[in-house]
């Protein structure tokens, strides 16, 4: 069966979340919990790497919408990287590229955080 997984890596002040599999209204709460955990610990520099994500619905995009204001008002950001083209299109259709930094590679996103 399809599934969804989040794993985490810390690089300096930046928390990188690797998301894998199928992100829909059923699995979005898992990602939400993970980001909530970071926010609760005062971690506001978050990079989400989409390399292994195969599917996303608006419930997945909604997770980022739910945190972005609070995180930015705390001087942080959520940046997104390594989306495949199908996933990117969903973000694009909804106009996310004007609101979020969406980078090709994780390294670019890290650099952008530190600049």
């Amino acid at each position, binding site marked *: 069966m399809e599934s969804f997984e989040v794993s985490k890596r810390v690089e300096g002040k930046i928390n990188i979340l690797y998301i894998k599999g199928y992100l829909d209204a059923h699995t979005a709460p898992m990602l939400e919990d993970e980001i909530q955990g970071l926010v609760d610990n005062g971690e506001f520099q978050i990079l989400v790497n989409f390399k292994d994500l195969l599917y996303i619905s608006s419930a997945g995009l909604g997770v980022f919408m739910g945190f972005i204001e609070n995180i930015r008002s705390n001087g942080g950001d959520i940046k997104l990287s390594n989306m495949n083209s199908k996933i990117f299109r969903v973000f694009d259709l909804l106009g996310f590229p004007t*609101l979020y930094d969406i980078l090709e590679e994780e390294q670019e996103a890290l650099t952008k955080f530190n600049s």
Partner: protein
Amino acid sequence: MNKEKYQLKIPSKTDNLELIRTFVSRISEMVGFTDDDVYKIELAVDEACANVIKHAYKKEEEINLVIELDYKKLTIIISDQGIGFDVNKILNRDIKNYLAQMKVGGLGIHLIHALMDEVEFRSEPGRKTEVKMVKYFVKDGKIKKSSES
């Protein structure tokens, strides 16, 4: 191909979204849609069903999904007997402004319009909601996605 009908009735819970997507994408593949169109149809159906699950009912009830195939198009009708909503209010929302205000939610219906060739919402508040969406096998150039104009 004659007109064919596939019907699925399924409990309204998020656990079932995967099954619904599988069902819809298999049929879409079977009738020859490109991978790209299969993905669009699958996502549009996911959004409509997620809405039934989230918004239509107080507790777990039923999603009714009908797929009709004729020689030129695939039509999907997703319906519920739930609380309904004011369709005009939602549809007239300017998604760009809406997003810029960083509101949570409100993306699903916009996405459905962007993904399918024709979309029609009907809802009787307090009684039911029905979404009908169409994907043509061949787009004839004149048919343009309404939400992209």
